């Protein structure tokens, strides 16, 4: 192919200066870009307002497309459910009978639990839900794992609040705009959640790997064995995530650091529940010993 781009645009001074000015702008702009990048790396929430205003525009579009997609996706399942409704009914009836006994037992256990807790005078802090909204899009091309939630500060969402789905923890709020907010997903390389093992309460940290899985690192002494199927739930340490939300399940037998799969697979089809940041009640402060100045 013959070169089509002539670097000398003729004898016109004005055109030559224009070309030169283009290079000046490009060099200056790339320097500005480098400075912005340094600022954004040192102080990640620095440009949150810009991103939030962009997300304000794009979120309605995403949620509209997602709504149409949900409508289309629900057609085959509703046809299928119409056809299979009789078999399903029988199966459900049987399941209901099976579960009834279990429910009775759980009720009595729950009652007993409440009674014992009141005996112990334990104060429990229930992290109330803030809003239920949908995740509408995610950073699909970047190595970071963010999602955009279809609710923002007008709905009461604040930075740092945990987000959970029906199956388990999804992540936490990183930036908020008026009607949309950005969620740091569990699998992001910079996400760390304090967890404990349900079996024995072993404390650990669940850190994102960036490829959809989590690393479970034991926070206790060394030589901890993880078995496949070990379930980890949030421990409530750190005061962000309320305790006992399912986080991940170990995939492979290993020691000290285990590979785990998250329970919640975030999807635009499901709701995400934003909860208030969990803050354990302050222990009653002992009366400070009066440190009077040495008497003269």
């Amino acid at each position, binding site marked *: *192919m013959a*070169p*089509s*781009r002539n*670097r000398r*645009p*003729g004898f*016109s001074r004005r*055109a030559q200066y*224009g*070309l030169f000015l*283009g*290079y000046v*702008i*490009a060099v200056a*702009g*790339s320097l*500005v*870009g*480098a400075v*912005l*990048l*340094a*600022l*954004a*790396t040192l102080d*990640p929430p*620095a440009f949150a307002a*810009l*991103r939030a205003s*962009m997300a304000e525009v*794009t979120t309605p*579009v*995403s*949620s509209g*497309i997602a709504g149409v*997609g949900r409508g289309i996706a629900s057609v085959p399942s509703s046809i299928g459910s119409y056809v299979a409704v009789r078999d399903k009914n029988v199966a459900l009836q049987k399941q209901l009978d099976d579960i009834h006994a279990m429910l009775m037992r759980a009720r009595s256990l729950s009652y007993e639990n409440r009674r014992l807790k009141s005996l112990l005078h334990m104060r429990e802090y229930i992290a109330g839900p803030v809003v239920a909204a949908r*995740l*509408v*899009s*995610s*950073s*699909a*091309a*970047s*190595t*970071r*794992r963010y*999602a955009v939630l279809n609710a923002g500060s007008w709905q009461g969402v604040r930075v740092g609040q945990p987000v959970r789905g029906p199956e388990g923890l999804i992540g936490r709020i990183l930036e908020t705009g008026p009607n949309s907010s950005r969620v740091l*997903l569990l*699998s992001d*390389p910079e996400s760390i959640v304090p967890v404990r093992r349900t079996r024995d309460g072993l404390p650990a940290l669940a850190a994102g*790997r*960036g*490829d*959809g*899985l989590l690393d479970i690192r034991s926070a206790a002494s060394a030589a901890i064995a993880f078995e496949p199927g070990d379930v980890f739930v949030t421990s409530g340490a750190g005061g962000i995530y309320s305790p006992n939300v399912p986080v991940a399940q170990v995939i492979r037998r290993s020691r000290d650091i285990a590979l785990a799969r998250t329970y919640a*697979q975030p*999807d*635009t089809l499901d709701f995400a529940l934003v909860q208030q940041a969990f803050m354990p009640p302050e222990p009653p402060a002992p009366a400070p010993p009066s440190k009077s100045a040495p008497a003269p």
Partner: protein
Amino acid sequence: MRAPTRGPFDAAPPPAAARMLPAASVMLASLVTIWPFITSFPILPPLALMMLLGWRLTRPAVFPIWAALPLGFFDDLLSGQPLGNAMLLWTLCFFVIDLIDQRLVFRDFWQDWLIASGSIGFCLIAGRLIATPLGAHVDTVLLFQFVIASLLFPFVARFCVWLDRKRQGA
């Protein structure tokens, strides 16, 4: 850049929509990330960068050299990378392609494809180093992303040429 006045035999300048079309197509490619799906690893190729390179390599005259700055800014607002990432890296790619334009004047598509793959690889790797801590396990996925993006580039370039033909015809 162009001569300021139009001579009596010059072609009429294209309408504004046609002049905006290349930039609009790159911005639309940036907007693909608002498509509603939640991925658990980075699988979407950097479509906006591929589109930009497609225009730059097949039709060198449509973008001035500073065009990567505003387009990169727009992409940074949407992609989840820190702000300034695409502004800096895309402009560096433009500079390098400008240099190659001077050295390697007569090229065919294979060389353009190689240049584009190199640019995409550079932007992906540099973006990963900037945005993500070194210990993250994203390198395998990043390799797949790079391979997919490189293999898709000829289609994107053809698409740019097709758009350009439409633009000229309109």
